[in-house]
């Protein structure tokens, strides 16, 4: 989707403000939201791709006026409500409506394993790559209404294949329950002048094969 989350190149956000000696969390609730998000993932609430899409589908004014962990809190609450694991009223009051009590799938003992292991997003498809390193390509000028990892700022612009990462899970499909539909993933470089009409730097992105066409 062409949303406000797609921020590459946008003006108006002011200077970058590094914070000296920044703590990992700025308030205890931020830490709890992180913990809750990870712990609830053990309930199979959806893919990381659908989670990213949940966040980017927040109404634009809300996306821009909330912080990172507040957006997580909003969407985690929504995910749990949609799953039926708890109702909005229960989550608002903090009180369970029924006396049923399950056993948490993620215990403290399992945390090191849960955090230290994770699956690969690479898949074997057997399909030959359409592009090879060094080749000129153009990012397609497409505007999907759903989730995509093709930022607006490269659409229609010409670049060069720098690396082939093999086939990876395709977020545009996986975010919408359409299956992993793995596709070749490439690192593509673009000169700043091609992207912005000025500048001397280079920008590299990882782009899936269907985002690209020969140039």
């Amino acid at each position, binding site marked *: 989707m062409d949303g406000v989350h797609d921020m590459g190149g946008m*003006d108006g956000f002011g200077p970058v403000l590094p914070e000296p000696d920044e703590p*990992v969390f700025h308030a205890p609730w931020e830490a709890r939201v992180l913990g809750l998000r990870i712990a609830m993932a053990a309930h199979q609430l959806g893919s990381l791709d659908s989670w990213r899409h949940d966040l980017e589908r927040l109404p634009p004014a809300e996306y821009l006026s909330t912080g990172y962990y507040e957006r997580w809190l909003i969407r985690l609450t929504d995910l749990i409500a949609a799953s039926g694991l708890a109702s909005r009223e229960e*989550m608002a009051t903090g009180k369970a409506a029924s006396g049923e009590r399950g056993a948490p799938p993620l215990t403290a003992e399992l945390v*090191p394993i849960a955090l230290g292991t994770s699956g690969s997003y690479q898949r074997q498809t057997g399909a030959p790559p359409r592009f090879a390193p060094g080749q000129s390509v153009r990012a397609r000028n497409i505007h999907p209404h759903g989730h995509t990892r093709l930022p607006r700022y490269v659409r229609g612009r010409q670049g060069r294949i720098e690396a082939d990462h093999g086939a990876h899970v395709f977020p545009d499909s996986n975010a919408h329950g359409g299956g992993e539909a793995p596709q070749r993933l490439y690192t593509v470089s673009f000169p700043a002048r091609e992207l912005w009409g000025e500048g*001397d730097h280079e920008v590299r992105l990882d782009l899936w094969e269907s985002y690209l066409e020969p140039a």
Partner: protein
Amino acid sequence: MKRRGRVRGYAVADEWQRYSAGMSAQHHHAHDHGQAPPADVALRTQALESVLVAKGLVDPAALDAIIETYETRVGPHNGARVVARAWADPDYRARLLADATAAIAEFGFTGRQGEHMVAVENTAMVHNLVVCTLCSCYPWPVLGLPPVWYKSFAYRARAVREPRAVLAEFGVTLADEVAIRVWDSTSEVRYLVIPQRPVGTEGLDEAALTALVTRDSMIGAGLALAPARA
């Protein structure tokens, strides 16, 4: 800190200075900086945790363990060890550049947001800078959780557009002949910048080198520390 107004003729930064100075008290933009969340967010979080615990969906001890992991065990000190070894050990450096996921796993640094690692090396010719314009993708196993500035809208917007101006806001000024390469983390591939080894560190061992590697230097927003400053 330097302001953007210096870089461009049009005074977007002036707006921010006006707001920062509180001249327009009705308008609060603190969220953009990740500061001052609404008071009720903490209460909402507490209510959510309470009910999830009451229903046996989450174990509060598991939450504590997750938080403790990212507050103490998984953070930029992990990445610093990787970088220091790459500086100290040419064979390790070669393995890291060839297959960063495997080379980083030699330290046991694995897990979510580090599934597909790529190491990119800063040199006298090329400076690498990492961003995620679409969300806030970041290599957790080596750097921990991202700082607020990395998640900020300003950084997400500007790193790919005017990296020299952004670097200047971090106090980093590169010679014009240094090529800047910005990596936008659009896939599950995560990038670790190997900063340039500072001059005057020839005699230092791996542990001493580790202390010179800052978080920002592994994102490309900073340089490794000179030995005197470490």
